[in-house]
């Protein structure tokens, strides 16, 4: 049918751009990952050596664990907090638009700006958080030198930067929730909490799926905040896969190895997404 020719013709600009500027470089990245490239001069083909090295590299596994942990912690908290904030913000609230804008404001800042602000605020010597805690007589954690505290500081900053979008998305979705259904539930004697849990939340499933996809993608692209706030330290406590790939590729001059790590990240996220999509297929309409 001519129909689908037209479709592909209209898709052509996007296809060309993606194919040329993303897929082709990705193929090149895979090729580089199979060499001993240092970023300058000639590189020798080494097959799967870099991948073998990865398997035996404790730093890699630690970074992988940190990345997964970050995802497992930050995605649900952003979703839950965003949903909660949206519930608080919906109807019957003056200046709602202003609040919405305030919560979203950190999202539009660049990652580097957020990271620098975070680094400054959490500085364990002169940062405002520790100074305030000390004045209040509370213990002031070592945000840069203690592994757990460093991880928490990174998590808090990321949460601050990203949850705003979730709030906006849920807020908009909540406005579209059918009132009649809620009313019926109310009349049936459902408490507010029950209404939210058994009526509102399920109705927002598509939004939740959308939000989760967004948040997972954001987690795996986290780079600036970790690099600037903790540099992956102390002792690798906050090293995530992307920062490790960068350190190997651009600082240690192990371009092939850094590339291999990136390829692994991509593959794992891809497989996970395919798996999730497959699982979702049963419950959602196939678009």
């Amino acid at each position: 049918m001519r129909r689908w020719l037209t479709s592909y013709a209209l898709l052509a600009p996007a296809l060309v751009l993606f194919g040329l500027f993303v897929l082709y470089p990705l193929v090149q990245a895979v090729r580089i990952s199979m060499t001993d490239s240092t970023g300058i001069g000639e590189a020798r083909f080494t097959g799967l050596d870099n991948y073998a090295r990865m398997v035996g590299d404790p730093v890699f596994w630690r970074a992988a664990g940190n990345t997964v942990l970050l995802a497992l912690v930050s995605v649900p908290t952003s979703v839950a907090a965003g949903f909660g904030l949206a519930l608080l913000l919906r109807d019957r609230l003056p200046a709602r638009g202003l609040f919405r804008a305030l919560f979203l404001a950190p999202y539009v800042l660049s990652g580097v700006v957020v990271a620098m602000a975070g680094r400054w605020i959490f500085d364990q010597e002169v940062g405002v958080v520790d100074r305030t805690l000390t004045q209040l007589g509370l213990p002031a954690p070592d945000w840069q030198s203690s592994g757990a505290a460093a991880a928490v500081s990174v998590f808090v900053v990321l949460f601050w930067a990203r949850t705003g979008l979730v709030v906006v998305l849920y807020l908009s979705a909540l406005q579209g929730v059918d009132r009649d259904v809620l009313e019926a539930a109310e009349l049936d004697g459902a408490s507010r909490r029950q209404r939210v849990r058994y009526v509102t939340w399920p109705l927002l499933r598509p939004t939740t799926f959308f939000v989760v996809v967004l948040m997972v993608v954001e987690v795996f692209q986290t780079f600036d905040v970790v690099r600037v706030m903790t540099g992956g330290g102390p002792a690798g406590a906050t090293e995530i896969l992307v920062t490790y790939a960068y350190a190997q590729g651009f600082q240690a001059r192990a371009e092939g190895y850094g590339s291999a790590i990136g390829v692994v990240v991509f593959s794992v996220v891809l497989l996970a997404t395919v798996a999730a999509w497959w699982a979702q297929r049963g419950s959602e309409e196939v678009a």
Partner: protein
Amino acid sequence: MTAPRSTPSTPRRPRASATRRTVLGAGAGAAATAGLTACSGFSTDASGGTPADPDELTMITWASEAEVPAFEKLADDFAAAGGPRVRLQVVPYSQVLTAVDTALRTDSPPDLFRVSYTDVAAYREQGVLADLPGASDLEPAFLPAFWSAVTDERGTFGVPHHTDTSMVLVDDEAVAAAGLTLPGSLERAWTWEEFADVLRRVQPTRADTYPVAVNWQNAGAFRWLNWVDQAGGRLLTQDLDGVVEDDPGTLKALSFTRDLFRQGLTPPNASTRGQAASDLFLNRTVALCFAGDFLLAEIESGGFGYSATFLPRDVNASADLGGNALVAVEAGDKRDAALDFLAFCAQAEQMGDFCAAATVLPTRSDVDAASLDWKVRPDLMELYVQQAEAIRAPLVEQVVVPSFSAINVQLRDRLEEAFLGSADDRAALRDITEGVRSVVRA
């Protein structure tokens, strides 16, 4: 490239409208220039915003506020002496390796760039750099340690432009309060024991300050090897092919430096992946810090009194090889002109002027460092000149091997674990040697 500064108008001008017109005019002019340059950014003739001078040489470098004018003076003097214009491309320090590496992959690589002694070998090994003609004539004028950093059996690739090293900066107040006298010469530098004693005497009463921070953060991780060399140890074997196992000197150095953390003499975030030692000195978290002479201008901005003294010594007095070389790119089409510029920069007078302006040390033996007109703290620079005499060949040869970028990253990461962890010294040392061994290339 410095911004054009609009002339400030006199504040109490009777005709305010004229002032406003001037300012508006200047603003419109600036905006127009900006706009025109922006429009040219859409063209793909790779010339950037300014019309390309075909004979122009481009040089990629990082440069502190003090160094930019010093480099520009070199370029101006070279042009005045009849050479082509040298255009500086200043990039942020943290990005310079990436900027250089990517630029080298293009058809119009930079003609020149600045590179540290620890990174230059990687480029040299790949044949990226141009061989300096007449190198053997130049060689005698230079101090051998620096010449060896840019030379191998195939030739000399670039000129050792300047060097710097570290000393111990001390807060004057802390010194007075602890009743210390600073050693006046290299021979009388504190021993490790004396140094530890000094730290304990300086140990402040406030809970949030510490005696010392050492400058081994991030790219400076290799400065930990100073301690190794001071204790008579070695990281790499004599033939530079492998790593020395269980070296007693290295073990002693590791033990001593870990004690700094274990005894709370240095803050935990002064570890190798932590905050710069000079930063901690500037915000008064530490009373002593190890710092290079190129930082003096920044430390001055702290506004408090400070002095310098020599690095502690053990079996040896050993200082780190800091500083950078200027190199020319082999594949550049203006290679000969670039090499001319290098030779120009390597002359005694040029080197002296640059070092004085940037507070770094010359690499030529015929440049009398003591007679240079240092821009900042000439009294301390005299001491740095003395300290630089302790840059020893055994250490230098270890830090200029081609795989040193990777070794530096290993040192940074393994030392961080050692300093903040609780493994015993021998196990920590083994982690370090294992890590370094995994990246040393024959």
